[in-house]
């Protein structure tokens, strides 16, 4: 199964693999959401939207609809 940021649970970490969807705002890339970066889900608002992320030290909140566009690979718990 192909995971996206929207699949992350609180405290889970993953590596971003692809952000090439045309629907992803450029601003998200510019703020550090780039392939190869690790991402951690810091906090979820009620209804799991928006999502508060830590992407390689950049702390962002994005809506769930945007999160579904960012492809990831989950990092298994050590």
């Amino acid at each position, binding site marked *: 199964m192909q995971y996206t940021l929207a699949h992350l649970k609180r405290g889970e970490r993953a590596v971003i693999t692809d952000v090439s969807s045309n629907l992803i*705002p450029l601003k998200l890339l510019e703020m550090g959401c780039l392939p190869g970066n690790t991402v951690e889900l810091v906090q979820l608002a009620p209804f799991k939207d*928006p999502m508060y992320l830590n992407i390689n030290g*950049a702390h962002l*909140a994005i*809506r769930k609809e945007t999160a579904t566009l960012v492809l990831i690979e989950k990092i298994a718990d050590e």
Partner: protein
Amino acid sequence: MSKQINVALIGNPNTGKTSVFNALTGLNQKVGNYPGITVEKKEGSCKLTNGTKAHIIDLPGTYSLNASSLDESVVIELLLNKNDKDFPDVAVVVADVENLKRNLLIYTQIKNLEIPTILVINMADRMEKKGISLDINALEKELNTKIALISTRKKTGIDNLKALIEDYQSLNTEPCLNVSDIDPDYFKRLSDAFKNQLPYKLWLVITQDVNFGKIERDTFNQVEDFKTKSEADLKKLQQKETIKRYQFINNVLKKGLTVDLSTATDLRIKLDRILTHKVWGYAIFFVILFLMFQAVYEWAGPPTDLIDEAFASLADWVKNTLPAGAFTNLLSDGIIAGVGGVMVFIPPIAFLFLFIALLEESGYMSRVVFLMDNLMKRFGLSGKSVVPLISGNACAIPAVMAARNIENWKERLITILVTPFTTCSARLPVYVIIIALVIPEGSFLGMSYKALTLMGLYIIGFLTAIVSAYILNKILKIKSKSYFVIEMPSYKVPLFKNVAITVLEKTKTFVLEAGKIILAISIILWFLASYGPGENFNNAENIVKTEYPNLDETELDDKVASFKLESSYIGIIGKAIEPAIRPLGYDWKIGIGLVTSFAAREVFVGTLATIYSVGSANDNEDEDTIKSKMAVETHNNGTKVFTLASGISLLLFYAFAMQCMSTLAIVKRETNSWKWPLIQLGAMSGLAYIVALIAYQFLK
């Protein structure tokens, strides 16, 4: 020799850019609007040691030169237009030491425009706590620039920055990376078609949807024709460009930045765990909202009363000191009362912005957006709209001003338009007196009918605001990219200087810009109420004396005042609109009240007092006297004026109608046009009329 240079401060939001601006300029700054749009323009000046005057513009915070909002387009428009009088001789890019990587993105873009650029690395005081160390020499070499490492909190490094600005001509203007690398073929064709233009500049013109300076537009139009790639392909290239820039930045930071995580402490994690929590987060936010509401509603009360009384005594003093006459009346009742009417808003504005500045400065406001976004987006509002909507329950003026913190223009406009529906404190005197008059005694579940009615009016106001937002969101066709990517900055202790300047600036803006409109309208209203045509007005005293020969002096004065108001221009207007308000259950006396209370809702009570000739009654008994007068008021046919039907109709009218010139004035200032306040006036008062009409016809 004195000469002036233009300095532009550029940088991401939350980098302390405004602190740098405040540190450089102090109070030598002014805030206005960019012509034709509602983006705040902050400029100021400072003297450099060689006597040069630096004219400093604090450009809106932006993450990159790819604009996604009006604020950001302002930055690009200025940087692409060499003929603009503000075009910078030197750009100062402000970065936060904790977010250096992301903050350097825009730096590499500015470098591609070949403008002399200084890099400021701010918040140096936090380096130790975060385990960060920098090799400034290596960074300067890799980034091709001079760096000022400063701390606006500890006030260090500012002099070094000034020296670098002074020496701007020695800066290297070579770009950090070659933008043509992202698609050499395409860029070669571009530069062949448009010789002598910077490739990055051409690239920005192609990819950005912004207005450019008139003079260079011709060149740009040709570039438009050249657009040989689909939007999707261009976007792919922009993504590639961004990735390339980050590769460059990562390489630079490998050489110049080391972070020792073992010494880093993180307050953020602990605070966020509570402040963005599903339960505690909301609980804390509502406590803060409650405090804010209390501040505007209660704490601002005593200073407001003090200002109110001071102006009233000044008006009295002028009246008693200067020779009686038209000029003295204009001065005391028109101008002084009008200025007083502007000044009374200073305490609530100052209190609200004290809170907002603290919330913004500390980084907490982003958490509010995080918590409230899900709910508010359903109504086309921003998470930040909560602040105006709640503070609107105290007073719409500071609330509308608070909407400026909303970045998205459509969300901001909707917030401004619906905020006046919330129940401000000026409605309270009107509500209280009418409820006391028409709502019967009795209780339901332990709450009296009167209290329930008052609560109902508050709820109606808030719901109308929310529903109108929903409707406006559907019908307003405003292009705005409203995707939601919000930075969650680290928590900081607010800088006193920044908070103080914000409060001062907001107050000044209100007094100077909205104030003149309010003053003008209040003088017009004063004139209409103090003058009238013909015998009735000019001879009021004699006419009343003849009609009621046996009155004592106070009673006579009251009767004369009442008769004069009735015969004044405003009285004539009130009578003229009677046919229109009859179906709502009102008579001409209420009509006069409606006209005068356009100045402010609470004026309604005072006007009725004058009309019912109880103007000079003892203050303590004032309300009861008016009430008893109102209770026995009858129409010509002997039926009572204030019944349940007409009372409810009047309550609903005041709940919806835009009866506040000060709100209109501030909406004009905040939307930079008369269009929106006029639409607001028409829509709100139209709605008020229809609802009051239905209520009266249904209940009577």
